[in-house]
């Protein structure tokens, strides 16, 4: 019944043993009778265990220490994700850097990770997750993508060839104010946390705030609505920061904005049923990307333009980026199709990220070659 925590190795080496209460006296007698010295390290192991349990339940989780021990299969707080970013950069300074592209309404920094093997203003791919804060699988997938790029940038030929010619920009928490709100107050919060026009209602839908038929059908002028477009285009600092970044960079070739849920891959337009000039090409890329995604776990995706596949929406992100000349503009709606919806179980984070990554690679490879 003796539980050795430091097993016997040989003469002269100490041994640590946990002793159940009934065996205490007999063991002491035995050690003394044989002239073996001992000392008590822990008087009451159970008390220690009980104390640790109350501590763990009470205090917030410790911040991660390395991206190798980071738990990708659980949802994290904003602080944990921001710490993750710093760790990733510190561990891979030659490949990743962190850029601050602006500040949110509540003055939180808006961070973008830049993955680059060098060069000057190379053509680039942009990926954002978490623009709608309740879509938690997206931020969690963004974290996974960041690590994946680090792990695979040399051994995966496709990714290596992409990074030989292009940079990847990844904004993991595109709406940090909303994200914190989903963790502290309302898990179902979607919008930003800005206050406008003296309304009692808070927040603007960041995916209706872009300058692409802003204020048209498919967005609401009611500040209390989940699809409120805001007082004017780019009123939201979270949106303005990306607009400024895209315009200043000037060489973005592919732009992917990630949402959940519904399992869809979408291309422009959302504001009009007039097809984009590149509709055929975008449709073909989507078909390939969806096939790659499905190949992993059999997850079914539909694809098409926003307006024909999901609904009419004006002021949307990829309508604006497409009209800026970024041909390869796509939006994903990740798992699932409604069984858990926004509350996707954490154990689906990694499979979702893995399958989505395959689709992203199809898009990035196409952008590299065209």
């Amino acid at each position, binding site marked *: 019944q003796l539980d050795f925590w430091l097993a016997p190795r040989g003469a002269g080496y100490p041994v640590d043993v946990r002793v159940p209460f009934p065996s205490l006296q007999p063991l002491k007698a035995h050690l003394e009778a044989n002239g073996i010295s001992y000392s008590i390290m822990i008087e009451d192991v159970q008390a220690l265990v009980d104390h640790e349990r109350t501590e763990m339940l009470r205090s917030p989780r410790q911040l991660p220490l390395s991206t190798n021990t980071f738990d990708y299969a659980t*949802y994290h707080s904003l602080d944990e994700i921001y710490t993750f970013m710093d760790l990733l950069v510190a561990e891979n300074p030659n490949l990743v850097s962190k850029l601050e592209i602006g500040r949110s309404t509540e003055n939180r920094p808006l961070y973008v990770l830049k993955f680059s093997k060098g060069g000057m203003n190379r053509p680039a791919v942009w990926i954002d997750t978490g623009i709608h804060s309740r879509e*938690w699988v997206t931020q969690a997938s963004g974290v996974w993508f960041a690590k994946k790029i680090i792990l695979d940038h040399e051994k995966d030929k496709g990714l290596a060839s992409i990074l030989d010619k292009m940079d990847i920009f990844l904004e993991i928490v595109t709406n940090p104010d909303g994200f914190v709100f989903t963790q502290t107050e309302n898990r*179902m919060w979607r919008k930003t946390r800005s206050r406008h026009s003296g309304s009692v209602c808070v927040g603007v839908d960041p995916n209706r705030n872009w300058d692409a038929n802003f204020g048209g059908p498919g967005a609401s002028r009611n500040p209390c609505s989940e699809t409120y477009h805001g007082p004017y285009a780019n009123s939201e600092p979270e949106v303005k920061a990306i607009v400024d970044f895209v315009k200043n960079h000037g060489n973005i070739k592919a732009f992917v904005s990630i949402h959940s849920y519904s399992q869809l891959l979408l291309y422009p337009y959302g504001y009009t049923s007039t097809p984009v000039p590149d509709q055929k090409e975008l449709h073909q890329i989507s078909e390939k990307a969806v096939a790659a995604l499905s190949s992993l776990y059999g997850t079914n995706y539909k694809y098409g333009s926003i307006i024909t596949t999901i*609904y009419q929406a004006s002021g949307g992100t990829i309508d604006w980026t497409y009209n800026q000349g970024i041909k390869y503009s796509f939006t994903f709606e990740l798992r699932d199709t409604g069984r858990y919806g*926004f509350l996707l179980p954490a154990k689906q984070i990694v499979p979702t990220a893995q399958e989505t990554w395959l689709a992203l690679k199809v898009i990035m490879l196409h952008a590299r070659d065209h």
Partner: protein
Amino acid sequence: DIDDVGHKYHLELVLEDVLDKDSTVNCTAEVLYHLGNKNIAPDVQFTIEGELKNTDEADNIFYNRIKSLEKELVAENIPDSHGNVSPEMEPIHLLAWVASGYVIWQNSTENTKFQLAQIKHVKQVKRSDEYLEFDYMILLHEMVSQEIIPWQMTVLWHPQHGVQVTQDSRQPKHA
């Protein structure tokens, strides 16, 4: 298009058992959305080709477990923020899903797409007869408007008599 009446859809669909993905059954249905009046639920006729799985055993286990509780069941946030549903709460979750299907049907138009987003709160109501009664506060997610709509529903269930929603009402949204 049916003049002066509404829009009728003929559907061929496959029903898949949520708890057993390989168990499927074909179904045909006709749905008529009435013209104009948003307050009438669409008419639905359906035929199931084949049989649904027998669930008597699981139903009885759940029924007896709830009947033998000393205190009325109370729970909240199912699933929780991380998508977790404890095994004991899974039948409560499934019951809400079925019952919300009725509420969704009664409130659907051609321009809505509802899903059950979460059970905010559920409370068992003690009854003297053999039925189980649960008072649910649920959140419905409406896809087109993206709104989260709180909804109260009172649900009756019995293994042999099935599900009934005896009362339901839309609740005001928080700010």
